[in-house]
């Protein structure tokens, strides 16, 4: 399997404070990685810096994505190259309908690849199919992006957008937080249905329960700004049973 993402010795500071302190991570096509860790360990920072959000200063290390220098790319260039971030707190954009945003996003990607714009009928078929997959009412398509959505609806909308945009690498930042059990199943089904030998996922999560539904190939424990332990899905169960304390203590010895 080819390497999609290679993070080496990544150091990132926010507001003068170093949050990531030398993080290494390799993600290959077809893999699902879970990144777990206590609050404040730098999980969301990793998701944001990979997607190019402002305000994160890279002080060391490198990130290669499909052989490209990811950190030199603008957020939209990363997105067009197939990187998708599922936001922990999806923002509301009043008056801009979901389908309008998606169509703009899809066409931006297609034109970056030298493809023609998607025709209206084809686009509508696509979004309707994906909406069914996410068990979303079609009225959601015409509503403003996340406008007046509940927390769970916003998260489902993120996965729906992911399904339409069909990314190469999807980073889902705490997608499970704020979901009830039914919504969690729907979201997980959405993710599982997109698993593909050419696609990889990074699931950033605090709790193990998401991993009951999406079985990761690797589980990484992030603490103090770097990965202190890596294992298979059983590591998540171990964390669930023992909590972070023990692993942190073990790592520090």
């Amino acid at each position, binding site marked *: 399997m080819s390497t999609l993402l290679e993070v080496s010795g990544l150091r990132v500071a926010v507001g003068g404070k170093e949050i990531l302190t030398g993080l290494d991570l390799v993600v290959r096509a077809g893999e699902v990685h879970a990144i777990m860790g206590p609050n404040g360990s730098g999980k969301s920072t990793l998701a944001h810096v990979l*997607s*190019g*959000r*402002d*305000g994160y200063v890279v002080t060391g290390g490198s990130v290669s994505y499909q052989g490209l220098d990811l950190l030199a790319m*603008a*957020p*939209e260039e*990363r*997105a*067009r190259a197939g990187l*998708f*971030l599922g*936001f922990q707190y*999806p*923002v509301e*954009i*009043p*008056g*801009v309908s979901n389908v*309008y*945003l*998606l169509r*703009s*996003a*899809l066409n*931006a*990607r297609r034109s*970056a690849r030298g493809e023609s714009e998607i025709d209206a009928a084809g686009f509508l078929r696509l979004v309707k199919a994906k909406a069914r997959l996410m068990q979303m009412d079609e009225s959601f398509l015409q509503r*403003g*992006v996340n406008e007046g959505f509940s927390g769970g609806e916003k998260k489902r909308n993120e996965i729906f*957008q992911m399904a339409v*945009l069909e990314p190469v690498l999807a980073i889902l930042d705490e997608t499970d937080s704020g979901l009830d059990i039914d919504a969690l199943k729907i979201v997980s089904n959405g993710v599982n249905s997109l698993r593909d030998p050419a696609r990889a996922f990074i699931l950033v999560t605090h709790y193990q329960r998401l991993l009951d539904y999406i079985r990761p190939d690797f589980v990484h424990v992030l603490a103090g700004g770097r990965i202190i332990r890596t294992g298979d899905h059983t590591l998540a169960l171990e964390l669930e049973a023992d909590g972070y304390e023990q692993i942190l203590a073990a790592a520090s010895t």
Partner: protein
Amino acid sequence: MTGNAPNQGLEDFMGRGYAHGFVTDIEADTVAPGLSEDVIRFISAKKGEPEFLLAWRLKAYRHWLTLREPRWAKLHHPPIDYQAISYYSAPRTAPGLKSIDEVDPKLLQTYEKLGIPLHERARLAGVAVDAVFDSVSVTTTFKDKLAAVGVIFCSFSEAVREHPELVRKYLGTVVPYRDNYFAALNSAVFTDGSFVYIPKGVRCPMELSTYFRINQAKTGQFERTLIVAEDGSHVSYLEGCTAPQRDENQLHAAVVELVALNDATIKYSTVQNWYPGDEEGRGGIYNFVTKRGDCRGANSRISWTQVEAGSAITWKYPSCILRGENSVGEFYSVAVTNNLQQADTGTKMIHIGRNTRSTIVSKGISAGRAQNAYRGLVKILPTAENARNYTQCDSLLMGARCGAHTFPYMEVRNPTAVVEHEATTSRIGDDQLFYCRQRGISTEDAVNLIVNGFCKQVFRQLPMEFAVEAQNLLNVSLEGAVG
């Protein structure tokens, strides 16, 4: 975190600029600059007006002489020299044409270029157009089809000739010549405009539209529009305007009067795109307009929708007098100012009748060094039992050197009334921009997308063809605004 960083992608963005800035080279009858009773007599004679109208013009002029330019608006401009303006200019071949074939091809080309084809073959489907070029109406399309259902849609001059009784009955009853400085000036020197009469119970079968074009240099445009909707009738009217790109400022002082009788509905939409001046604030139209609708009948409804993107200065407050019981007034506005444009615009809702309702939705967007003010009055008189008003007023700022201002006045004198006002001012959220970019959308497209979303409530009120035009206009107006 640097706030402006996500917007830097726009810095190199080349503006397409003002698309309608060309001049039509056409022979014109233009009266020498200056204003006097003689000039007014000249205009009136040129149009072959009845005596009552000349008398009214002269009364208005004499009253105007006693007034001073209003200074209360948040606008700054050098004094206007009213003697340096020419008050009449008409393309030499225009008036009294029997058919479109007699219209100078140059004029037809002009409107073609503006996207308003007047020729039978290419007419806008379902929209009748009155084309006003400088001081006169060039042609009105679909007149026969409208006449079949009794709808009168013609130039104001023609209405004066053909329907003097209607003009006399309604002219100045909504906006009297004493109303304000610019209304008085308009009443004295107005040259043309559109006239619409919808008879009882008629639902106008198509959209009516007037397209105003200033072409001649050093002229002012003073048009006057009168729309009367009889009991139970319904009409939707659209207004568009452009002007050439010039270094001088030109004055546009129009008056629009709407009369809605029992159960009548008038929907009036404007896409205002007069030349706004250049990046340094040179040139552009001074747009001082008085628009008012009188909901004279019970259950009548007047709805104003405006997209104000052009003009160096915009001073206009399309208003509703809610006289009839259960009458409804609406005002939906998008005002965009960029570079050194200034806008002071809003509405007045005067509640007189019982159970009258009004809604105000105003979206102001300010960029560059522009100043954009909403000014609105909601007045509930003691007679207006159970009156309701809801006002929402949002401003978006783009850049650290522009201004956005909100000046609402709420005067309530009936305890059963409920008046609500909400306003917000902010800029485009960094988080919104980032969200769009993460989905692969460029910064400039994201800005357009978010701004259009911000204006959606207003655009939704426009007829389809205009909504698309308005959206594009907004994007063009704001090009180069972020960065």
